């Protein structure tokens, strides 16, 4: 068993890498990414460009509204968004196994200069020496610096950089006034070191953005999960025991209906009916609690009531989603078990009906339900974004969806990482749950 779990955990690694690489490449190769978006925003002269401008604004905004950005600024933007590297390198950087360049500073070589002293702040100086087409950085003791690295940051070939002076004096390269370079620190930081990057829109580390929203989704999902189990398992059992009865047919009709309407659409109906539009004003329209100015003045019990009041509709909508599948699964599974020989034997040897059902039959028929638990946990994440959208709840799913709209790649990837990990672990969990309820199953 232990070996099996270890092996499954190890197998998750290539799956995880494959899944993230796939989406990473799609995102990075896509036209209209954050880079284009920001360039466009700056060129349109928009002052409130929500997209992350961060450290790159200073150079961008100087170009003024409506004009084309200078090459220099575009380069800096590219660097800010990490688009100055080939895709595979970007992925490795994102993973944290390739050096990430941080704290860039620009420096220029005036004509004839081969060494530049650069102020790196905090009274530190770097001495950058030109050596062919490469740059070497020394600290003030004259040793090669371990902290900084530098390289030329130009669109001309290495040979042209080496012979820059001669080419310049012979009248070539007129439009390039001087050699430009960049000096930076490097570090290994990616998801393997727990760094999911910084959101472009929220200007916060991705983890900070995700934490509160994740809590909301989990709370909602677990409550929904608990309620649907509490409703579906007894209902399924009752339906199986009274197979073909009026109760069975009636509840089947409801189940068919629940199957034909997705939970979020049902949530929409509830909202129109009870949200105070044209019908009844019973429940709030959305959010997870009342607006902040009301919320802070509430007493403890009022807060609890307020929260429940807001959560009822979303949770009903959530539960409807898994209601039909779970109940039918439970019913069919119990029916299956009831027609097995050992049940007949149990009856034949004179056990009471109660004992046969509850001790012999039900225990075996929850096996498929147990194996479904992983899938259901996975849908907490995947299924929640519609419900969160409709009820305007700032949850995990809504964040991921909004991130796609905003081209906020760090958040999009962060959402994906969490979703993939949850799925992988949920799959393992359902296999383990299966082994726990079914002693016949032994994993090797």
């Amino acid at each position, binding site marked *: 068993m232990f070996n099996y779990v270890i092996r499954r955990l190890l197998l998750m690694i*290539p*799956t*995880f890498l*494959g*899944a993230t690489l*796939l*989406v990473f490449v*799609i*995102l990075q190769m*896509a*036209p*209209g990414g954050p880079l284009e978006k920001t360039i466009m925003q700056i060129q349109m002269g928009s002052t409130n460009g929500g997209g992350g401008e961060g450290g790159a604004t200073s150079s961008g905004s100087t170009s003024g509204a409506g004009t084309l950005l200078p090459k220099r600024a575009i380069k800096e933007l590219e660097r800010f968004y990490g688009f100055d590297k080939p895709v595979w390198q970007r992925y490795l950087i994102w993973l944290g196994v390739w050096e990430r360049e941080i704290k860039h500073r620009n420096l220029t070589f005036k004509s004839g200069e081969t060494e530049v002293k650069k102020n790196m702040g905090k009274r530190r100086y770097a001495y950058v020496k030109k050596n062919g087409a490469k740059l070497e950085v020394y600290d003030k003791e004259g040793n090669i610096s371990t902290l900084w690295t530098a390289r030329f940051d130009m669109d001309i070939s290495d040979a042209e950089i080496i012979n820059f002076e001669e080419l310049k004096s012979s009248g070539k390269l007129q439009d390039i006034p001087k050699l430009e370079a960049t000096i930076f620190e490097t570090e290994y930081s990616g998801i393997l070191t727990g760094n999911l990057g910084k959101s472009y829109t929220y200007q916060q580390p991705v983890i900070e953005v995700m934490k509160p929203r994740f809590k909301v989704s989990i709370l909602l999902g677990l409550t929904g999960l608990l309620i649907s189990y509490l409703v579906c398992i007894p209902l399924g059992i009752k339906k199986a*025991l009274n*197979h073909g009865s009026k109760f069975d047919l009636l509840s089947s009709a409801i189940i*068919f*209906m629940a*199957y*034909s*309407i*997705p939970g*979020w*659409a*049902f949530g*929409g*109906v509830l*909202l*129109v009916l009870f*949200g105070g*539009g*044209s*019908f009844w004003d019973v429940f709030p*329209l959305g959010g997870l609690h009342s607006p902040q100015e009301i919320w802070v003045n509430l007493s403890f019990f009022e807060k609890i009531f307020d929260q429940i009041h807001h959560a009822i509709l979303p949770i009903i909508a959530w539960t409807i989603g898994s209601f039909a599948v779970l109940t039918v699964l439970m019913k069919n599974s119990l*029916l*299956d078990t*009831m*027609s097995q020989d050992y049940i*007949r034997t149990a*009856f034949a040897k004179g056990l009471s*009906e109660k004992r046969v059902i509850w001790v012999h039959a039900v225990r075996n028929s929850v096996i498929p339900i147990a194996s479904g638990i992983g899938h259901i946990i996975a849908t907490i*994440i*995947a299924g929640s974004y*519609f419900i969160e*959208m*409709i009820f305007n709840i700032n949850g995990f799913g809504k964040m*991921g*969806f909004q991130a*796609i*709209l905003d081209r906020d790649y760090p958040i*999009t990837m962060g*959402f*994906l990482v969490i*979703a*993939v990990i949850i*799925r*992988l672990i949920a*799959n393992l969990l359902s296999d383990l749950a299966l082994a726990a309820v079914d002693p016949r199953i032994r994993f090797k």
Partner: protein
Amino acid sequence: MTQQIIKSESINHKRWRKFKSLKRGYYSFILIITLYILSLFLPLFINSKALVVQYEGDYYFPAFSEVIPWVSTYYDGNMFGQDIPGAANFRQLQKSWDDSDNWLIMPIYPFNTFEDITNNENRMYEPPSTTHWLGTDNTGRDVLARMCYAFNISISFAFVLTVLNFIIGISIGGAMGYFGGKFDLFFQRFIEIWSSLPLLFVVIIISSIIQPSFALLIFIYTMVNWIFLTYYMRAEFYREKSKDYVSAAISMGQSDTKIIFKHILPNSLIPVITYFPFSMVGGILVLVSLDFLGFGLPPPTPSWGQILYVGLSNITKWWMVFSPIMAQFFTLLCIVFIGEGLREAFDPKIYSRLR
């Protein structure tokens, strides 16, 4: 003595008879098929163009032009003496021709999916009335007309999607089970990666990058959705391959193609058919979800999800929430009934009763 050959009923015939005896599924099947075939000729029922126009001795059939693909659908207002720029407005013509020899017959429901407030008599957010049975939407377009056209699109989308998924899923799943080895291993890894991704999320990412058309949306969704059948087909082929009749076929020197298509496939295909309706339910739901999020078919296309989106962002306009949800609900319910009937007909499980 006359020799009477009693031909035994084929298994498929039996199944069909069983399916027919399950009224709920059978009537749903007939209903959906009829509605879908009717919806192919929707321009004749729900259209702002007249069915027949008699103008100064000549006959015109504007509505029919939309059913026949190679005929121009454009009828200029000047053709019928109407003093407006652009296309003819047949509803106005009908009113103005009350006391003349010219006449025209409008379709039963004289609105189309695209006329918005730029047509002078249309208004935004009209609640249901006798003119607009299900009201109008945020740009003054008739909701009922859009709903009906959306029905056609939804069913077509789900059908094409499901057929493609089945073809790809069955071929790859079957090949995995039959050939095994490296091929199987490769695809198993691949499928595991695919299935660990939140697929709708990936579809949304792709749709947010390229504005999808009908074909592209089907392509994208097929790409991510074919895997669910491979599990079943793989197991089925794997099991069938070890049976005696396949060994016999192999020992007779039959080719792989013949064994796969002639021997194994017919045996393992039948149970798969019961998945078909449920897969269509999934297809319709996906289209509604994507349209709702704004990542589905390009904007003027009528779709349930888009109407639902407008309705839910204007919560007082209840007709735009109820109509699409009800339409979707009844369509799906019918398809679920069909699926249930098929399952019953193909896989009759007789449960023993307690007493």
